[in-house]
């Protein structure tokens, strides 16, 4: 034990940081392994998530071209710790953009962090190109509203109120402002799917959405919607790490109960 600690000290890494590094490397190993397995043909069974089931055929239920599909990528952006949440929103956007192209719905994407603007636009453009309809892409379909979250919510409420929105998906990093948009959508009878990661926001997602994606579920979009191998592998790796954590907690509880 002491040898390890000394070694760590010599290499300039604190014991806790070392522990985290080990967790990271273990997860990475899991991921490489599961990703390979999925690529070789293994398909993990997935717990049904109604949110993604609905999202998969979101606009199919309400096809009437000319009306609006609203997608929010969250009140946060990339470059910070909420990058992962934003990625979840982008996954959903990819899928929804293709559906919108196929059904002729008008797509409005709203963002609150301008660093997302080029990425959201690229995602849209690629979707239009993949569907062989590049001339349908309009960069102004992606609307930057304002960096302040309340101003963003006010702008999105305006979209929901006045732009004949038939369905709305809001997945990403959100705070309390979520309920302003979600409840406005519910009042207008918009079909809604939402998801957020922060526990404080989840009650609002639950209360105002038709289908809610809670916490970790938002990150599973790549696996559920597009069956991307690395995402399916990643879901398996997450579950393995989850099992490891559960075992670690049980072990820790047992040790503290018995020894203390």
């Amino acid at each position, binding site marked *: 034990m002491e040898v390890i600690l000394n070694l760590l000290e010599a290499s300039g890494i604190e014991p806790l*940081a070392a*522990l*985290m590094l080990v*967790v*990271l490397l273990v997860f990475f190993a899991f991921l490489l392994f599961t990703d390979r397995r999925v690529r070789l043909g293994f*398909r*993990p*069974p*997935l*717990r049904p998530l109604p949110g993604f089931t609905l999202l998969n055929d979101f606009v199919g239920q309400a096809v009437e071209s000319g009306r609006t599909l609203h997608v929010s990528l969250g009140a946060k952006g*990339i*470059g*910070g*710790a*909420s*990058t*992962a949440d*934003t990625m979840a929103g982008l996954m959903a956007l990819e899928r929804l953009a293709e559906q919108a192209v196929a059904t002729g719905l008008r797509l409005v994407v709203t963002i609150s962090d301008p*660093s997302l*603007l*080029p*990425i959201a636009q*690229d995602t849209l453009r690629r979707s239009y190109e993949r569907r062989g309809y590049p001339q349908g892409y309009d960069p102004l379909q992606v609307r930057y*509203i*304002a*960096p*302040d979250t*309340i*101003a963003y919510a*006010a*702008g999105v*409420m*305006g979209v929901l109120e006045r732009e004949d929105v038939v369905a709305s998906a809001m997945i990403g990093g959100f705070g*309390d402002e979520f309920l302003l948009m979600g409840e406005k959508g519910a009042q207008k009878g918009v079909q809604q799917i939402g998801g957020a990661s922060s*526990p*404080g926001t*989840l*009650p*609002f997602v*639950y209360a105002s959405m038709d289908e809610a994606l*809670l*916490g*970790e579920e938002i990150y*599973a979009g790549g*696996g559920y919607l597009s069956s991307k191998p690395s995402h399916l592998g990643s*879901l*398996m790796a*997450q*579950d393995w790490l989850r099992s490891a*954590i*559960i075992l*670690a*907690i*049980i072990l*820790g*509880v047992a*040790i*503290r*109960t018995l020894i*203390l």
Partner: protein
Amino acid sequence: MRELLGTWVAALLTLMVFSYLISDNPLYRLAEHLFVGSALGYAIVVAIQDVLLPRLFTPLAQDPVTYWHLLIPLLLGLLLLAKGRVSTAWFGNVSVAFLFGVGGALAIGGALVGSLLYQVRDSMLPLLPGEGDGGRAIDNLILVVGTLGSLAYFYFTVGGERRTSGLRGGALRLGSIVGKWFIMITLGALFANAVMARVSLLVGRLHFLLSDWLRIV
């Protein structure tokens, strides 16, 4: 005079927003657009005054030799602007990739150091904290069971493997049922918890109308 005029403007804008509760109307719409516009302008002013000038342009202008490395973010920022044109768009991918690289690392760091470490550590509670402390023991048991259950609730790929025994499957099923109870309690409690802060906000606005503007109170 300035104060009085300001109070009137603020009060009228406040009433314009409250009128939205009845239904959407031109007054609210005006207030909404004014707000979004001013928030946008303000953010840019802050970005210029507190970020671009002191962290980029001032150091570069005063001492370009020492701060040569600031040319890199300047370049990356300009490349991002290149995304505006389709023909030059791919240059911008470099800046976007930079943002994703840093963001991905911060997400990992935040997850490991920010939450995982502390939450797992705090979950390891002794179930027998000491003699005559039955209440704590029960609390700790609830905390441990609730944490494990709600964690198990989120399993995505349960049971696809042959190794999954009936016992383990049963434990997982039980875990996720219990976990769902705890998640529901959490949602209810956090909803109510959010009410307090927002009610204070509403009280503050109405107090402003009644006291600063109408001077009733």
